[in-house]
């Protein structure tokens, strides 16, 4: 089997698997060889599930041979962020605290991916307890960026972003509470979709902040993201926040022209202090969307300057609450950064927490006003290029900024409102680092953001470029 096949997305592999032109077992072994070759350099995985993956691939091959093809994810090598419970497979959440935890159940999203026939290749590296944006993990080592392994892969789903970008899997399951799907997608040059809050069950995902956590895919193409979303979306009695609202055939509904569609370009916040190379590439992407027939509309979205404080109050309070039992017994097992955040969560005021939750309603209203004038809102995903591993400051358009502030800035409005947002590649910096375009939409309107993203993607070649890895 050609090594090239491991570089291909779901939409290319699925018909070849269905028609038995390629075997899930051969594809798995191909990908596994790649994982073993790249793991020492990129450190994308905490656990490689070789035996389980081989078993799943063998079963998929037999099922398909017997005419029981389940759909486009059947036989596809997929990695799972180590945040999600996987039955019989160690699940660490990137931590020492849970370093020996072997769940006896699967997260709902994992159940659904297994039902769709996925071949799980491993549990990906992540920022400890999802509580950061670089995946510089003190217990398992940093996840490294495939485009420049001296740089961060983003976080917290950094291992997932790096694994998809370097074709150590075809797709990955991630989570996003402050950008943790979209940040690694942007800095690793892949697609990352944060669906509407409640679109995908959070059951079985170790929480960072219950009211901010979202589950979604990282993939090679936009259509792949639609396929993954269709597999994992839907109600779940085990998650009271999971929506029972019906969802469409994303793959079908996302097709079509974007002629006449209105692109909202915010006047405030989203284009402030942006690296000039990122600004140039995102502006070019917006122009490309206009060339495809969309109409640019400037929109006002007030009050966004309160987002960072809101995110801090909500995340710190909810995370500290979840970790309280662990802090009593295993405080010294936390990395210093996460431990500091957790301890700080005890000292913030309940009144600030509640005000932050109330202000989310205000932000939703402000965004919905903007959505009366535009179907989607576009922006950079992050304002700065990824720093070297260990660096805490980045350059964001003439100002030096903490990497956490920078990477959270354009992402947190959509975690706070719960509205869906996707990041996809829109070019490369002069130094060869990928840049992400973010497209956000109304609640439960994943179809429109997928349509816009796909129209842009299909008119460019960014998704066909792969990192050179020796």
């Amino acid at each position, binding site marked *: 089997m050609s090594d090239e096949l491991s570089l291909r997305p779901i939409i290319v592999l699925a018909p070849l698997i269905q028609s038995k032109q390629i075997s899930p077992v051969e594809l798995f072994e191909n990908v596994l060889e790649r994982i073993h070759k790249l793991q020492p350099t990129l450190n994308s995985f905490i656990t490689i599930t070789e035996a389980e993956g081989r078993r799943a691939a063998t079963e998929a091959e037999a099922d398909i041979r017997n005419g029981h093809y389940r759909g486009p994810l059947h036989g596809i090598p997929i990695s799972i962020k180590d945040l999600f419970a996987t039955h019989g497979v160690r699940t660490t959440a990137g931590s020492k605290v849970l370093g020996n935890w072997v769940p006896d159940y699967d997260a709902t999203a994992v159940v659904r991916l297994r039902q769709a026939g996925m071949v799980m290749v491993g549990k990906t590296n992540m920022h400890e307890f999802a509580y950061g944006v670089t995946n510089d993990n003190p217990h398992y080592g940093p996840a490294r960026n495939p485009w420049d392994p001296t740089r961060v892969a983003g976080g917290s789903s950094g291992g997932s972003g790096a694994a998809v970008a370097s074709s150590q899997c075809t797709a990955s399951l991630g989570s996003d509470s402050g950008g943790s799907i979209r940040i690694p997608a942007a800095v690793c040059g892949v697609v990352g979709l944060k669906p509407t809050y409640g679109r995908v069950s959070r059951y079985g995902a170790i929480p960072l902040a219950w009211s901010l956590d979202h589950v979604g895919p990282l993939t090679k193409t936009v259509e792949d993201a639609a396929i993954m979303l269709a597999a994992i979306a839907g109600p779940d009695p085990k998650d009271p926040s999971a929506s029972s609202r019906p969802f469409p055939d994303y793959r079908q509904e996302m097709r079509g022209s974007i002629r006449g569609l209105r692109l909202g370009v915010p006047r405030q916040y989203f284009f402030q202090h942006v690296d000039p190379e990122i600004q140039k590439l995102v502006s070019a992407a917006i122009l490309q969307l206009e060339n495809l027939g969309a109409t640019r509309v400037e929109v006002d979205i007030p009050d966004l300057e*309160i987002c960072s*404080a809101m995110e801090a109050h909500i995340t710190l309070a909810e995370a500290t609450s979840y970790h309280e039992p662990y802090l009593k017994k295993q405080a010294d097992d936390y990395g210093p950064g996460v431990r500091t955040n957790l301890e700080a969560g005890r*000292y913030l005021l309940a009144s600030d927490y509640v005000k932050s939750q*109330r202000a989310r309603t205000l932000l939703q209203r402000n965004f919905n006003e903007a959505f009366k004038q535009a179907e989607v809102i576009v922006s950079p995903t992050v304002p700065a290029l990824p720093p070297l591993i260990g660096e*805490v400051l980045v350059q964001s358009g003439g*100002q030096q900024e903490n990497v956490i*502030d920078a990477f959270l800035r354009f992402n947190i409005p959509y975690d706070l409102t719960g509205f869906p947002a996707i990041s996809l590649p829109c070019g490369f910096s002069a130094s060869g680092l990928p840049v992400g375009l973010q497209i956000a939409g109304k609640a439960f309107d994943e179809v429109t953001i997928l349509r816009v993203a796909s129209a842009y993607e299909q008119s460019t070649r960014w998704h066909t470029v792969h990192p050179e890895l020796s």
Partner: protein
Amino acid sequence: MDVSQFVSSPGRRAWIQGSAATLTVLFSGSQLPAQEAPLRSTLDSMSSVTGLHLGDQWLDPVATLVNAILEDSKPLRSLELGALEPATHFTCG
């Protein structure tokens, strides 16, 4: 790295990333900027409220972080929200 440069990003909070370099500076006994010293003392005295005593090793970085968040919270705190209720995402679906 100079602590004040790190924690005083203008108008923005400065979360402690956890990088070894950052925490080496903070734990090396560098003096906190003036505005954080009273906060350190306040946090220390809150053990009767929290029920926990935060050791010396953690008081400085936690005080730094809390101070940064409080600075960043000024626009939020001054915002009038009227009768607006918390967003309950259960209403989405």
